[in-house]
């Protein structure tokens, strides 16, 4: 039940609109009858060609890669520092900060966007990729902090305390002792940061200009032109192209994703 819609769309993306949306017989989409009639073979790359070349989807793919790469790196860098501090603090105010982070996480993204637009227009920073990158990093922080802080709590305090006793300051202890052992947690958190940056729609749709768009808002802009014949298939092809990397991600990182989801929830 979970996967059949994906398989159906994947299979259909290689057909023409007449087959994918065949009122006569849904089996048409399976065998590609219209496709055979229109293009001479039961599989066609027309949808993909349309989306990637004519609609310049490859540009959006590059934009997405840039945005996601920087969001993950910056997010993890400041998040590990913050999460470490929250885990080792020992004072009450750490809890207050975490609860504040939770409140921040609950804010609808579109609400934040409505706060951004006027000032960004005024200061002329709207429509640039770096602006969106910084915004996505900040929106991501509450979740990142919570996840990393719970991973750091699981690293025994004795490790860095012994480093402190040996004369390191906090930062050196962090760099030499903690960084080598924190990778599992960091990779898991990085995955979720990746997902948030990759999947985002509200922020990227409102803060990027037509030329700059990442893949998801670009697909939304396809929807406006899908009434014409054949245009729907561009959107279908774009959707499949965007989803495939996620499939690969889940396949390789399934364990990390599951452990990340359960880290905060299940108290051991």
């Amino acid at each position, binding site marked *: 039940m979970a996967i059949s819609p994906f398989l159906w769309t994947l299979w259909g993306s290689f057909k023409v609109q007449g087959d994918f949306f065949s009122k006569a017989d849904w089996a048409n989409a399976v065998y590609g009858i219209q496709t055979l009639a229109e293009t001479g073979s039961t599989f066609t790359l027309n949808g993909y060609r349309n989306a990637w070349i004519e609609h310049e989807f490859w540009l959006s793919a590059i934009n997405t890669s840039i945005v996601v790469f920087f969001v993950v790196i910056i997010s993890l860098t400041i998040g590990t520092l913050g999460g470490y*501090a929250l885990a080792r603090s020992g004072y009450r105010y750490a809890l207050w900060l975490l609860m504040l982070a939770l409140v921040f996480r609950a*804010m609808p993204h579109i609400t934040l966007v*409505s706060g951004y637009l006027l000032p960004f227009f005024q200061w002329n920073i709207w429509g640039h990729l770096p602006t969106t990158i910084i915004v996505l990093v900040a929106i991501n922080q509450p979740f990142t902090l919570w996840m990393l802080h719970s991973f750091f709590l699981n690293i025994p305090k004795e490790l860095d305390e012994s480093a402190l006793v040996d004369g390191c300051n906090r930062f050196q202890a962090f760099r030499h002792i903690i960084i080598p052992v924190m990778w599992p947690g960091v990779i898991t958190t990085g995955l979720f940061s990746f997902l948030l940056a990759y*999947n985002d729609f509200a922020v990227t749709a409102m803060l990027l200009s037509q030329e700059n768009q990442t893949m*998801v808002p670009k697909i939304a802009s396809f929807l406006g032109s899908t009434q014409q014949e054949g245009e729907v298939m561009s959107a279908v092809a774009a959707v499949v192209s965007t989803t495939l990397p996620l499939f690969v991600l*889940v396949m390789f990182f399934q364990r990390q994703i599951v452990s990340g989801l359960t880290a905060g929830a*299940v108290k051991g």
Partner: protein
Amino acid sequence: MPHRTFIFFILPSLLSMILLIAVPIFSAMTQSLFIAHKQVIRVSETCDPFGCKKETSVDAEATSHLREKEPLGVFNGFETYTNRNHLAAAEIKTSWNVATGWKDLFSRIMNLPFYKALAFTITYTFVVTPFVIILGFLIALGTNSLASWLKGPTIFFSLLPMIVTPLIGSLILFWMIDADGIIGSTLQRIFKDNDLSLKASPALTWIMLIVYGIWHSTPFAFIVFYAGLQTVPQETLEASMLDGASLWQQKRYVVIPYLMPLIIFVTLIQLMDNFRVFEPIVGFNASANATSLSWIIFNDLRGEDALQLFGSAAATSMLTIIGVGILLIPVLIMIWKEFNSKTV
């Protein structure tokens, strides 16, 4: 950890959150109190041998000059909150006086954009969440009893609806449900009604969106419950079996109470997240029949240049934040209690 070191470590993260989450909320609060400048109208008089005529026209140059000088607009106080697009105080009052009964009053209120969005948002939140919990729990129970070689792939497939971009997931389902798509045309054949369209009536659209919401969020509940099921203490379970409990009784009296903290956790997170529902409405193109609070904010911001309604979007944002805040209170209380019980 000494306070100074703590501040250094956490400063970048905290600064980014304050600048880009806290400040925009205040910015939105401020914007909600203003309304865009109206266009400047100029009355000019032209006199010719036949008499003098007055002509009104829009002074475009003065208008754009004014808008640039004072981008926020004119101070409007709380008027934006009570206008027709939001709380609609005046309209509700008239409806109350004019309505012929509860049903009529209800349908009049539903015609107001804000209340229509609020109704859908609340319905979506409070229908999707219980279904997600129950379905997630059942799937977790089912997966737990599968042969172990089946478990990995099952988890892989079940994770997918959640990982996929909400907009894309809703598009995929939308294309299947479309009257020419596989589900749509099959349904038409089953009901022998060539005009049947899941997009036609509000009720069907709401159901469709809710089904999507359940499809999308169940994996999260499933994974959390599945992990929890791995840690159910075997002794209690075996003791109950010795006492003669049936399979169902075991679940009810041992497993569910043990998983209760997880169930509460998932419920609260789901309530919070579902309240923000937005992408499915875009993906399903459902805005004619179903709107949500986040969607009407998006709609206000979408126009070209001068047509963007910042004040209106900001006012709706404030009202949405109040709603989220109300849902957030139990979460915060829960975390507070747990932290206290741990450190004390």
